[in-house]
């Protein structure tokens, strides 16, 4: 499994507020490795994840998933790719309101065409791993930001994606929890040999990552593998 962005340009917004979020960006993400994506706010981290996650079609350039270009896919093909091969944890708004922690995971399985009953045991296991084993039946919208983010992470892991994209997973949790989340991400990455990209400002994540990609340096044209 590999993920490469070649000369990708993305412009966002319309008219006056139109900005070039990514301009001619080229970067490779290593398979079976955890990459930390760092850079100042507004440098395009979230935008890069969206392009890599088939959520956003770049205005120019190619996005190669295992060598196959996904930049030109139709919206329906993109949707299919997202539900079958991509795990995504957004910066916020990850959960369906009114559902319990466990139901969040089962609903995701159902969207991906999997039987909720078949994944139930695994879902409970994952929620326990992120430290929410005792809150399976609590409504997710009554939980804290960090707890919600952990549910979203468990949900992304449930379907064993080829590409795992995580946007600021530790922004709302304490240091110990952050370490736990990073460990889980690293372990999952190794176990499934998936490409994992984590946009972050958190030194805990950066320290544990296999590679670090700095948006500021990328813009200057230099990648910095460690």
């Amino acid at each position: 499994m590999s993920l490469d962005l070649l000369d990708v340009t993305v412009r966002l917004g319309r008219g006056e507020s139109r900005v070039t979020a990514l301009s001619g960006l080229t970067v490779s993400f290593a398979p079976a490795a955890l990459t930390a994506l760092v850079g100042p706010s507004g440098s395009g981290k979230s935008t890069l994840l969206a392009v890599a996650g088939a959520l956003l079609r770049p205005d120019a350039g190619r996005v190669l998933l295992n060598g196959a270009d996904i930049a030109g896919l139709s919206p329906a093909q993109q949707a299919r790719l997202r539900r079958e091969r991509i795990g995504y944890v957004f910066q916020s708004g990850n959960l369906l309101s009114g559902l319990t922690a466990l139901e969040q995971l089962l609903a995701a399985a159902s969207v991906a065409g999997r039987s909720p009953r078949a994944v139930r045991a695994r879902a409970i296991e994952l929620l326990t791993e992120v430290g929410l084993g005792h809150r399976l039946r609590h409504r997710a919208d009554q939980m804290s930001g960090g707890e919600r983010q952990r549910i979203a992470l468990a949900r992304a892991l449930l379907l064993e994606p080829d590409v795992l994209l995580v946007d600021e997973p530790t922004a709302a949790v304490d240091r110990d929890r952050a370490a736990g989340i990073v460990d889980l991400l690293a372990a999952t990455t190794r176990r499934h040999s998936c490409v994992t990209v984590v946009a972050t400002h958190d030194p805990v994540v950066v320290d544990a990552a296999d590679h670090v990609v700095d948006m500021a340096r990328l813009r200057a044209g230099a990648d910095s593998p460690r």
Partner: protein
Amino acid sequence: MYLALLELKAARGRFLLMGSVVVLVAALVGIVSGFTTGLGDDTISALRRLPATHLAFDRGADSDQFARSLVGEAELDGWRERDGVEAAPLGVSIARGTTDRKVEVDFAAFGVEPGSFLDPGAASGTALSAGEPSGVVVSQQLVKDGVRVGDLLTVDRLGVELEVTGTTGRSSYGHVPVAYLPVETWQRIRFATPGTRAAVAEPPHQYSAVALKAGAGADLTGADRALTTRTVTVEDAYAAAPGYTGERLTMTSIQAFLYAIAPLVVGAFFAVWTVQRRPELALLRAMGASRARLLGHTLAQAAIVVTAGAVVGAALAAALGLAVGSEVPFSLPAGALVATMATVVLVGLAGTAVTLRKVTTVDPMTMLGAGR
């Protein structure tokens, strides 16, 4: 479907509220439909029961034919001679009477020729017979009113005496229960001068209409021209029954309004529901749910709420039908109930159609806004 049900459960308060509105609308539709049929039966069940295909009225009578039209012996004989047609005289008029046990009743006097195809026979007692001109067969409602076989029924102010020989099933005309009697006796009632207390010795040999059983090839227009009659189907003659057209118009317009309200209410609810959960829809799209799936999901929720509402509403309407019994003209056969509820479901679902576009146009990119 799993997700649709999860969401239903999560937002059950809102869906229950919506469902109860559907219940009320459905129950109201059912009740109105029950009254439409019930009142209709009360007005024309006697006509519906007639084993005739057509009625030939006097050409001069355009409306209220049962009250206005008079056809004579010549027309009756003329119709009897036509090929492919069976003809029998029919007299219709409204009268009041009192039995020898002092029961006062209104009744629709239907004069028929004993033994003709219009003769209703008798469910109990004996049928009309030509040899017994004062015999009368009363319908069910008159029995309920207290008229019994063997009673002597005197027509008020005319003094015509009738002897109740038998009973027959439900039959009413213009909200008045029917009594069948030999057409000669009917003529004595119809053509008597009220207050004289003396029956006309030789009343005119006229009838309200000639009832016809016409085969497919019968030339009715030709016969009408030759006999100066105006033939209409029995169904078209319903309109000539007193009050029938007005009642139907009233009831069907109430029903039409309800059918218009149902989709608006359901549509408005789902429009609000969809706007409220745009963030969820965006997330589902971002997670890879296809447009078709979200559509199916929303439609499934609508179908569940609307169907459940209609079923409960139907049960309410049916329960009301049982509760009022036969005290009021209410009739809601299972077939009619199913048909009206199916219509409620269909128009309710049609109401969600406007919302469906909003569901499919949700942009998963809104997930990127960090301000969510």
